[in-house]
């Protein structure tokens, strides 16, 4: 019930934030209407990084405690994170075409980092797919999840050094907080979108987590032969 309310709340706030970003805020002077894409782009990027942080922490949690809960959280983080990473890249390309004049900008370190991020966690989901036994799957995935978390900062450094021309961070950098260049309505639209997307993220995470727990239980029951009907559907462990 609480999840339903959360989902409904997410739906309403995403709709509200979208309406505000489309008609409530004026278009950007330089970038025109295309700038509106940034509200979605930035919100997705923030949640993508949050998701992968959750996966890294849950992977360590699994390796230390071996609790099925930890694996379910790690899976939810990776899958939802891949979704938001793909959304980030897609929105970034839609914005880049009119503003930069190109879909793909090799000199932008954040775009290249995000593309590698997507590849890293698609690999994480693949190794999960290819392992049948739940505990083994959780361990293998946890190792990949931790290596990916170690790799991300190195990837970021390497591509930044590799000659980045990206405009600095618009948010969270000290001099933009001290003399804000972005007028109030722009910031309000971005914050509203961040809040709305975060609600949607939470709703997705909770549901994916529950599904993962049910999957795990079904697999375990089938393994122990308690659900003979399911045994045929779940592949036997490899010797």
């Amino acid at each position, binding site marked *: 019930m609480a999840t339903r309310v959360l989902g409904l709340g997410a739906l309403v706030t995403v709709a509200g934030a979208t309406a505000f970003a489309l008609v409530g805020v004026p278009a950007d002077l330089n970038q025109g209407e295309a700038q509106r894409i940034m509200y979605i782009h930035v919100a997705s990027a923030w949640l993508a990084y949050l998701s992968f942080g959750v996966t890294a922490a849950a992977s360590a949690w699994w390796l230390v405690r071996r609790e099925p809960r930890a694996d379910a959280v790690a899976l939810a983080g990776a899958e939802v994170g891949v979704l938001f990473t793909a959304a980030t890249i897609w929105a970034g390309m839609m914005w880049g075409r009119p503003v930069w004049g190109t879909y793909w900008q090799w000199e932008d370190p954040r775009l290249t980092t995000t593309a*590698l991020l997507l590849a890293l966690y698609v690999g994480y989901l693949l190794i999960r797919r*290819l392992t049948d036994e739940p505990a083994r799957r959780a361990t293998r995935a946890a190792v990949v999840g931790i290596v990916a978390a170690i*790799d991300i900062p190195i990837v970021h450094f390497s591509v930044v050094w590799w000659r980045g021309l990206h405009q600095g961070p618009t948010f969270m950098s000290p001099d933009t907080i001290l003399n804000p260049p972005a007028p109030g309505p722009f910031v309000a639209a971005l914050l509203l979108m961040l809040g709305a997307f975060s609600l949607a993220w939470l709703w997705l995470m909770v549901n994916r987590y529950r599904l993962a727990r049910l999957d795990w239980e079904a697999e375990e029951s089938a393994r122990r032969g308690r659900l003979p009907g399911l045994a045929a559907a779940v592949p036997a462990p490899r010797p």
Partner: protein
Amino acid sequence: MERGAAGGIATVTAVARHLAVARAIAAKDLRAELRGRQAVTSTLFLAALTLLIFGFALGPDRASLAAAGPGLLWLAVILSGVLAVGRLHQLEMEDGAFELLALYPVPRAAIYLGKALGGLAAMVALGALVLPLTAILYAIDVASALPGLVLVIGLGALGFAAIGTLYAGLTVRLRAREVLLPLLLLPVVAPLLLAAVSATASLLAGDPLGELGAWLQLLIGYDLAMLLAGGLTYGLALEE
């Protein structure tokens, strides 16, 4: 005071013993290779062939080939390296030796180090072949920057062997390991590729931008991070 000294000596002997284990495992891999196991030797030919095929793909223009040289060198090393580290584990698995390895009463980190040393030897062999071949095929003068290039290849080989060994151990029992290993490995080694290619290009150009030091630092940091990750988690792959 005395206990402290004794404890120190005990630690040193324990480390020495683990290093001996690692060396024995690496020596075993090397011996098997020299007696014709063909885990790595075949990948050497693949690396050479890759360089040749790149030449066809990019056309006969000398200047563009030389400009692409550092990138092609490292692509040849890494693409063949994925197969080399994968095969080092796969053949062990097919011989039924991987299970036995896991049964030895030695720390998992020592086993990891041994397998990683074997992988390092394979990667160094690949580098030693690919470097002169790149020089010949793409008309690049490597002699003037040779010591630096050897260092960069050594650091790149170490980092690749460190993460490659971990992921090869993790995937060796999987059905689709031939596809999965490169899918997992290539995004993770992207910063290594970037740093190694940039360092190589910078060395060949005489380091005009003074950026060589930064790339070497990145390579060293990458190597240490991946060795640490492998040492801590490789045992989990063995324990199944």
